[in-house]
């Protein structure tokens, strides 16, 4: 069955690839040069795109660019580059025309020149998006020395990592990682597992990420199930023109805890790993091949892990108008089965009665194809298809009550068209099919099918105003359960005011169909029994947000603020709940509650004294369980993140501090299973990094980074019964040729 599916998918992909109609164009072109307004110097690498057409290019080392094959029409040219204001220029192109543009951009130190694809499934400047969006760039990842996906997100405004759950503006509590309320995509391809609907952090190709886009608020109008609280889209790097090899070696250790009771070993536990990546292009063909491993002895006993990963991306430009890429990603993880501590007094060891011989082996394989075909300068197709297989098994005997095994295949296909109907009127529409095939000791043999269609219009005829309207319909059916039909509309406004600030407003619906695991789980682990609930319904959310952003200068200091006030209403929230109707201490996933989350998020960026980078963000919210009239479980209500960069010649000093207030409530019945379940405190985490660029001093292309995470060795819990990572001191060496 699985092989048949795979064959059909490959056949469909290749058919579209080779049967795409040949483009018929008039041969108009736009050429030009992008320069700095103040001194006329060329802006190398500036991005130039014709909005809504799929046509785009970059300025060369002289600042020149060329766009070919453009049909007679009016267009908007979008020009962006880091450190400069973005520009939208109206362009009129006639038949067999050649338009030349000299584009001058004004320096704007805090501008990241970001373009994003996730907010509206098309490339656009981040400031034109009607919803809150944060971008973690490749340079941010390098700066922070992130070797794991969850580390990369820890300072994103509005995000709290609850172990395996990403809590975006309060959307998620703690659910053993199951049923993510944030959709995860890699290059637009869904990467939530077919059985548990969870994120496998080690399956993210962290060494090959160009940027991470985090869209906040319900996003089901484009992304369907899972986008209840937001969407995270990981954009991987593109192959480089010339052969390049780069590598990263990192190693470090957790310092021994201050308290003798917590020292479970005499020597320090180590973590080390490496990544290596090759990339090049031959004519129209480009590739990236990358691999690596990470071995973590952990600051806790029985929490070791060894991970391998392999990533390959192949691109081929069949013509200027037809491009295809294939992405292959494999990750394997062998780890101990840590769940919670023995007690606060022995916080680094697991309960004494668990089987410490149990090991978990998991593998993840993603294979995805992406075809982009520009029919003409008004219409282009993006076709994505692929599969994501996750396999998990522990090494216990099959007759052991705690034996676990699950094999899930998720097939996804998204055929999307973008059409430019008239001047500044863009239409995005498509069809989606998702098939989850699960064969599991835990969940049985289960099939889940989802079919969806979506359409969205963006209207920008009114000066400085962009209106976005869209709707998506999803049909979901899981084996013998009743089918579910969901309509997810959205409305967005983006307005650039004459007095400076940009304003945005969005309203949208999100939903999440229960995962196979939540419906059919039947397992035992670490004293918990999880029972199935096939009657689970989808959980839904309505999110609204108003926001504003502006760049301004006070006393010659450039500043940028971003302010959002958001409100979400959740219904039928699915939560793991102790079920008192069954024999034993049984957890079931139940549609238990209505919730309301209202909050405010404020971010301020600056360049102090012209060279010290500074960012602070505050998020304050009120996450209420309406049924119980109390704060939602596992939610903090206030978090404050800060980052400071001090460049001192070839040395850069970074410091990050995050404060998260104490979770008000957790499930009190955990008290029966987890000692000191209530041990939790506010978090104060300080990280330091010292980066040394040897290339500037010795001409050797090496960057050394000394990092200290949780420098004050502050002890806290992120989730019940889990001591957070203790102080870690590490060294990272990066080089590229």
């Amino acid at each position, binding site marked *: 069955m699985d092989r048949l599916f795979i064959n059909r998918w490959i056949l469909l992909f290749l058919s579209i690839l080779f049967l795409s109609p040949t483009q018929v164009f008039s041969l108009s072109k736009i050429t030009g040069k992008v320069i700095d307004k103040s001194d006329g110097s060329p802006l190398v690498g500036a991005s130039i795109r014709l909005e809504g057409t799929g046509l785009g290019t970059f300025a060369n080392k002289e600042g020149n660019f060329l766009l070919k094959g453009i049909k007679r029409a009016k267009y908007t040219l979008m020009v962006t580059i880091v450190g400069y204001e973005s520009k939208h220029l109206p362009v009129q192109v006639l038949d067999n025309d050649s338009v030349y543009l000299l584009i001058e951009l004004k320096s704007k130190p805090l501008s990241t020149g970001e373009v994003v694809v996730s907010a509206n499934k098309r490339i656009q400047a981040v400031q034109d998006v009607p919803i809150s969006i944060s971008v973690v760039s490749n340079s941010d990842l390098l700066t922070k020395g992130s070797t794991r996906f969850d580390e990369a997100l820890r300072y994103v405004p509005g995000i709290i990592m609850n172990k395996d759950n990403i809590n975006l503006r309060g959307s998620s509590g703690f659910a053993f990682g199951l049923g993510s309320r944030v959709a995860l995509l890699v290059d637009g391809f869904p990467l939530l597992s077919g059985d548990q609907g969870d994120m496998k952090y080690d399956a993210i190709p962290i060494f090959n990420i160009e940027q991470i886009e985090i869209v906040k608020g319900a996003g089901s109008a484009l992304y369907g199930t899972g986008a209840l609280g937001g969407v995270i889209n990981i954009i991987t790097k593109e192959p480089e023109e010339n052969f390049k090899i780069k590598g990263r070696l990192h190693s470090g250790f957790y310092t021994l805890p201050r308290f003798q009771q917590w020292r479970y070993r005499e020597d320090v536990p180590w973590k080390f790993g490496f990544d290596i990546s090759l990339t090049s292009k031959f004519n129209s063909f480009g590739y990236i091949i990358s691999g690596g491993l990470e071995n973590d002895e952990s600051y806790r006993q029985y929490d070791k892990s060894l991970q391998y990963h392999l990533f390959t991306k192949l691109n081929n430009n069949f013509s200027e108008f037809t491009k295809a890429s294939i992405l292959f990603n494999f990750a394997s993880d062998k780890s101990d089965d840590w769940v919670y501590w023995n007690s606060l007094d*022995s916080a680094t060891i697991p309960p004494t*009665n668990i089987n410490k011989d149990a090991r978990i082996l998991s593998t993840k394989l993603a294979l995805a194809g992406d075809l982009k075909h520009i029919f003409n300068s008004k219409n282009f197709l993006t076709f994505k298809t692929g599969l994501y297989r996750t396999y998990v098994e522990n090494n216990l005997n099959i007759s052991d009550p705690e034996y676990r095994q699950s094999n899930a295949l998720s097939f996804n296909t998204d055929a999307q068209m973008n059409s430019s109907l008239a001047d500044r009127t863009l239409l995005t529409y498509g069809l989606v099919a998702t098939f989850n095939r699960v064969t599991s000791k835990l969940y049985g043999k289960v099939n889940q099918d989802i079919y969806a269609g979506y359409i969205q219009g963006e209207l920008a005829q009114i000066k400085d105003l962009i209106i976005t309207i869209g709707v998506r319909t999803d049909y979901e059916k899981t084996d013998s359960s009743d089918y579910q039909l969901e309509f997810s509309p959205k409305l967005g406004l983006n307005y650039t005011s004459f007095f400076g600030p940009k304003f945005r407003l969005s309203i949208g619906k999100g939903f999440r169909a229960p995962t196979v695991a939540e419906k059919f789980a039947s397992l035992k682990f670490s004293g918990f029994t999880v029972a199935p609930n096939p009657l689970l319904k989808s959980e839904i959310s309505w999110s609204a947000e108003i926001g504003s952003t502006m760049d301004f200068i006070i006393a010659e200091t450039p500043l940028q603020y971003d302010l959002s006030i958001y409100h979400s209403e959740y219904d039928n929230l699915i939560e793991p709940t102790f*079920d008192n109707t069954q*024999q034993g*201490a049984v957890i079931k996933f139940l549609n238990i509650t209505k919730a309301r989350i209202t909050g405010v998020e404020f971010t301020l960026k600056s360049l102090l004294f012209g060279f010290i980078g500074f960012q602070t963000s505050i998020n304050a919210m009120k996450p209420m369980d309406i049924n119980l009239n109390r704060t939602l479980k596992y939610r903090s209500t206030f978090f404050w993140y800060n980052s400071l960069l001090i460049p001192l010649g070839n040395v850069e000093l970074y410091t990050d501090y995050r404060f998260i207030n104490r979770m008000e409530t957790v499930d009190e019945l955990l008290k029966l299973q987890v000692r000191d379940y209530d041990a939790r405190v506010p978090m104060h985490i300080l990280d330091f990094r010292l980066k040394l660029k040897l290339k500037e001093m010795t001409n050797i292309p090496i960057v050394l980074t000394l990092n200290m995470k949780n420098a004050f060795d*502050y002890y806290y819990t992120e989730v019940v019964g889990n001591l957070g990572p203790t102080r870690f001191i590490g060294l990272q060496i990066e080089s590229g040729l």
Partner: protein
Amino acid sequence: MGLAPKEPSKKSYISGQISYKGGRASWPLPDSVLEIRLVAFKNYPLSDSSSILKELTDGNAYFTIDTLPRFVDKADYSLEIIDPPALLKYIAVAQRYGNLFQWRVIGVYSETGDNTKPSTVMVNPGDSLTNINIEVDFLNLPPQPF
């Protein structure tokens, strides 16, 4: 600096032995003995059977986190009293026979040996009180504490 383990000198415990009259042959059928825990209540008597779990979750009772050995002649236990001083008015052995809310008391600490008259124990910081022994007689269960 955040969380910290307790200093051993400030910890308080009660400990003792639970003996089962008639030995292992006296135990009921296994499917009705899902867990055995030692529980020490600050309040006594309780209002009804459902208040047992409420006392536990409200922090008015202490209990062993795992089940004690079942189907044995006797079993030792040790229970930390996490926030002394505490006046323990009712120390009992509890059997879970069904779901999370279905418990019954099967033995009571009584200095006189009369299981209808539970004894009170005062635990101060640093105390380690031993010989809090309890006899369980499945054929003559004590009255329930509500």
